[in-house]
């Protein structure tokens, strides 16, 4: 939408005052949950020594603090989406305008957006309602605006655009000097645009299984004057030629995939990378904090409809990568440290990098 007559705010979802106020209320409750209740739960858990996470769950299941923590973790996320002021009903009521934005947007530079009307969304996406977003990002075009508003509304560790470029895109661009980059599971293209900004000379591609977010990602990229190639396809089965890319990256993807699908995606990434090309996985690959960390991570996985997040930390990613033809596998736990629990609830992200043999 790089027409002179269209201002960026014309393509944004507009939340009514009451909805914005309510979202702020939910953010406030989440703030207390992560800053006050989380440390209390950890302090109480430390008083309940257990050999493993299952033992700790049994010891803590009757603690009022933990019961409240679990309820809030699940239900505050629901309040964000559903109910009178939830993003779903509010934006569903504006579908006419939002659909028109998408319809007009996809007509701009259509050569940069490849959608597949026959594409079958994988079951692990279709039936998960990931993050408790009803219908997730694939059902309706307005889901893309719900996703955009939800991630802007509250997330502990979703970086702002500048930080994403500086802390994620630039280090990868420096390490691998890519001419062609693929961003797997790119959703609305936030990470894809960060990679393009960090490597302005590179040809950048983003793919995702959900058409609505790809369409909105296409619109947002054009608004910034970025010519990114988006396509609807699964990371498990790509239609790019062997050795086509110098860098394949995935930002917050693998925790939403079961182990078998991750394994397929790793093999497929190796196929489309040239020998010597770089692979980067930015996700919750490790759960720091020992037994308590694993216990809370597993609970989060259950409570927030991210059923595969627990499996990811159990997976031997190094072995999987090496078996698929990668070498020089490195794990960099960005936050917090490997030994200590953070003082406030946050995601604990790991950057995994590897080089194609």
């Amino acid at each position, binding site marked *: 939408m790089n027409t002179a007559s269209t201002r960026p705010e014309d393509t944004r979802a507009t939340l009514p005052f009451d909805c914005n106020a309510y979202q*702020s209320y939910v953010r406030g409750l989440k703030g207390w949950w992560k800053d006050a209740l989380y440390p209390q739960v950890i302090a109480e858990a430390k008083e309940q020594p257990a050999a493993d996470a299952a033992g700790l769950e049994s010891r803590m299941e009757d603690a009022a603090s933990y019961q409240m923590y679990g309820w809030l973790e699940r239900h505050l996320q629901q309040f964000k989406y559903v109910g009178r002021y939830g993003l779903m009903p509010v934006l569903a009521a504006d579908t006419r305008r939002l659909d028109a934005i998408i319809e007009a947007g996809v007509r701009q530079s259509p050569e940069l957006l490849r959608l597949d009307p026959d594409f079958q969304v994988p079951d692990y996406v279709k039936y998960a309602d990931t993050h408790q977003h009803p219908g997730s990002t694939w059902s309706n075009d307005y889901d893309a605006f719900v996703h955009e508003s939800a991630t802007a509304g509250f997330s502990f560790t979703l970086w702002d655009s500048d930080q994403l470029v500086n802390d994620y895109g630039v280090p990868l661009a420096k390490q691998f000097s890519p001419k062609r980059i693929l961003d797997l599971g790119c959703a609305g293209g936030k990470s894809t645009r960060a990679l393009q900004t960090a490597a302005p000379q590179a040809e950048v591609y983003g793919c995702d299984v959900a058409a609505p977010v790809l369409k909105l990602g296409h619109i947002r990229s054009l608004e910034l004057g970025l010519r990114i190639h988006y396509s609807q396809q699964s990371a498990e089965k790509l239609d790019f030629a062997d050795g086509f890319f110098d860098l394949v990256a995935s930002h917050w993807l693998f925790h939403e995939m079961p182990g078998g699908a991750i394994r397929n995606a790793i093999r497929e990434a190796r196929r489309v990378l040239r020998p010597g090309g770089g692979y980067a996985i930015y996700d919750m690959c490790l759960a720091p904090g020992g037994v308590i960390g694993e216990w809370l991570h597993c609970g989060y996985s259950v409570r927030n409809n991210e059923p595969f997040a627990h499996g990811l930390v159990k997976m031997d990613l190094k072995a999987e990568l090496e078996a698929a033809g990668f070498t020089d596998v490195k794990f960099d736990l960005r936050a917090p440290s490997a030994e200590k629990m953070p003082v406030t609830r946050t995601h604990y992200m790991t950057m995994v990098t590897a080089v194609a043999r």
Partner: protein
Amino acid sequence: MQDDKNVAMDKVYELISSAQGREFFNHPDTARLMGMIVALGGEVFVLKAQVERLTQALMKSGAVAENALAEAGQSKDMAVWIAREEKTFGEALLRPFVNPDLGAASPFMERKP
């Protein structure tokens, strides 16, 4: 290489998943009450925000003009108020669950005459 089912469904995962059936609290009615309280809190918060918006509009314009409400809703003052209120309101609402009685114990009550 692990089997997918084993990766996801180890013992702790099964335990926590089954805890969902208890709706987190020992008594399922607690979850229902919590849902009502938080929904009610949301209505109160929205109402407070509306009042604040109206107040700011009146202070700024002297009377309710056509664009006064909309302008106040977008104002920096409103954003500042919201940022302060979202923290203090959430804390005030949720604190009683884990610290339900801040009152000093009375020896007369303990003796149960």
